[in-house]
């Protein structure tokens, strides 16, 4: 019998969920700004947002490790503020994943907001909706496909992410040892049976979730006409 530790699975789900939430919170305003600004900074910000993914995850992880360290650009102030370190913590993982997956969220949202355009927003304003209200009741439901793409890509990428997490997390069981590392370890140590099982489980689980998400979306009104 193969022996499976399900701890990494829950941790992974937690990480992916937390990351997606943070990604949406961070990505939405950036995407919104990109879609509607006429600032000259736009192209620069657009380019910067897409940059993290050009680096190999482990290498990005290496730089994040330095930045998250006690003397790092981010880790230093963070320690001063919170009293605790960023590296090797769940929070650090979430931050790193967010950083790495940001383009997968910002880009689809940017496209979706552009497709919504100003007209429906103007209509909502004249109907007494504030800008925030309009965002939640008009812009985001109309950009639902963009959100769907963002969430799926963000979540799935965090599930499969590996290099960054490995580097920044320190692979501490129960804290930062996520599923992808567990599967990786099995492959590395030639425990193929366990690797196959975990992979199959992950795929099946993801497939069911995706299927549920997509068929829910299909039943939503917003579709091609």
């Amino acid at each position, binding site marked *: 019998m193969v022996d499976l530790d399900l701890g990494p699975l829950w941790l992974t789900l937690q990480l992916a969920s937390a990351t997606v939430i943070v990604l949406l919170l961070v990505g939405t305003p950036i995407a919104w700004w990109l879609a509607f600004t006429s600032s000259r900074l736009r192209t620069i910000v657009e380019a910067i947002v897409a940059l993290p993914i050009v680096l190999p995850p482990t290498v990005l992880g290496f730089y994040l490790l330095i930045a998250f360290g006690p003397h790092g650009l981010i880790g230093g102030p963070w320690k001063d503020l919170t009293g605790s370190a960023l590296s090797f913590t769940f929070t650090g993982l979430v931050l790193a994943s967010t950083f790495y997956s940001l383009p997968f969220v910002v880009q689809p949202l940017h496209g979706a907001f552009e497709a919504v355009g100003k007209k429906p927003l103007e209509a909502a304003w004249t109907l*007494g909706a504030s800008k925030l209200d309009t965002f939640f009741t008009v812009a985001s439901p*109309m950009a639902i496909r963009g959100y769907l793409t963002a969430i799926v890509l963000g979540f799935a990428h965090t599930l499969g992410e590996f290099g960054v997490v490995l580097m920044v997390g320190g692979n501490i069981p129960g804290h930062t040892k996520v599923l992808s590392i567990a599967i990786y370890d099995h492959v590395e140590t030639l425990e193929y049976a366990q690797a196959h099982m975990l992979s199959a489980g992950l795929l099946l689980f993801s497939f069911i979730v995706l299927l549920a998400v997509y068929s829910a979306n299909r039943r939503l009104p917003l579709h091609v006409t």
Partner: protein
Amino acid sequence: MSQLAANFEVTFPTFHLKVSLAVPAEGIIAVFGPSGCGKSTLLRCLAGLERSSSGSMVLNSHIWQDESHGIFVPLSQRSIGYVFQEPRLFPHLNVRANLHYGWKRTSESTRHITLEQVIHVLDIERLLDRLPQSLSGGEQQRVAIGRALLTSPQLLLMDEPLSSLDLQRKREILPFIRRLDSEFHIPIIYVSHDLHEIIELAKTVVLLKEGTVVGSGPIEEVFSQLDLRHLIPENHLGALVDTTVAEQDQKFGLTKLAFSGGHLHVPHQPRQIGERLRVQILAKDVSIISSQPSFQTSVLNLLEATVIEIGKINIEHPFVEIKLDIGCPLLATITRKSLTALQLHPGQRVHAQIKAVALNPETHH
């Protein structure tokens, strides 16, 4: 008296709008002008969707915009209803939710217009559960009107709201729009290309041309201003006459109206005796007869008149406009042939013959 005062200046690469408006904020204010003259842009300015560095917009005591004092009230606090030129329904919401959208965001105390009223007048009951994409053009337009009405706004902007509706529908909806001001005190800025509609509805007109106001004021003044005639198609030229209801003739279904020069018979109007009515008499519906006829005619309204002025005679144009006095001004369009036959001259006493059915009575107060 309530007043709408606004100044805007907007520049597009190939278009410049510079408008200064001061009109009574009462009834329906029609904005009229050729395609591309800036009507929609003006409406956008009024709504606060287009913002210029020197704009101002004051409705009654509400200062909604005064850039010189840094005032710009956000749209959502302006209580302006806007029916856009295209329906702009929310595609993710069904008709009911579209209608509710603005209604929910209107405080209960200011909800004068009810959902039932709107659904009834616009006849959209059977559309309530449908999504906008599956509606026909006219159906979408009606829902868009309803959605804007349900915010019970202090000012309603309507950009060609009835353009894709059939006459029957228009007839059902127009009286309701007309009542918005009298019942709920909602002044309406109304863009339309349909002069019938404008004449039927408007108390005030604003004539736009290439981004500037070339005429504005009470419709009867603007429509009889000589230099603006080229903007008003001939067959809409006419006099507006203020009358009071004098008598109801149940037998023949007629209403007799009294005015400074006598009486007019019009199709039955459901009005109280003594009520005020403004009617329009189109110049093309007035014939001139040299003397009191001795025979019977189907023409009910035969009035004594004095020729005041004979319009410009244009050799390329078969018609001449005659300004008559019947106790109030009256315009008549006759052929040059008739002019010669009748040998008309200012001061001459004639009879003006008006077909009752051509009358187009309208409430304005």
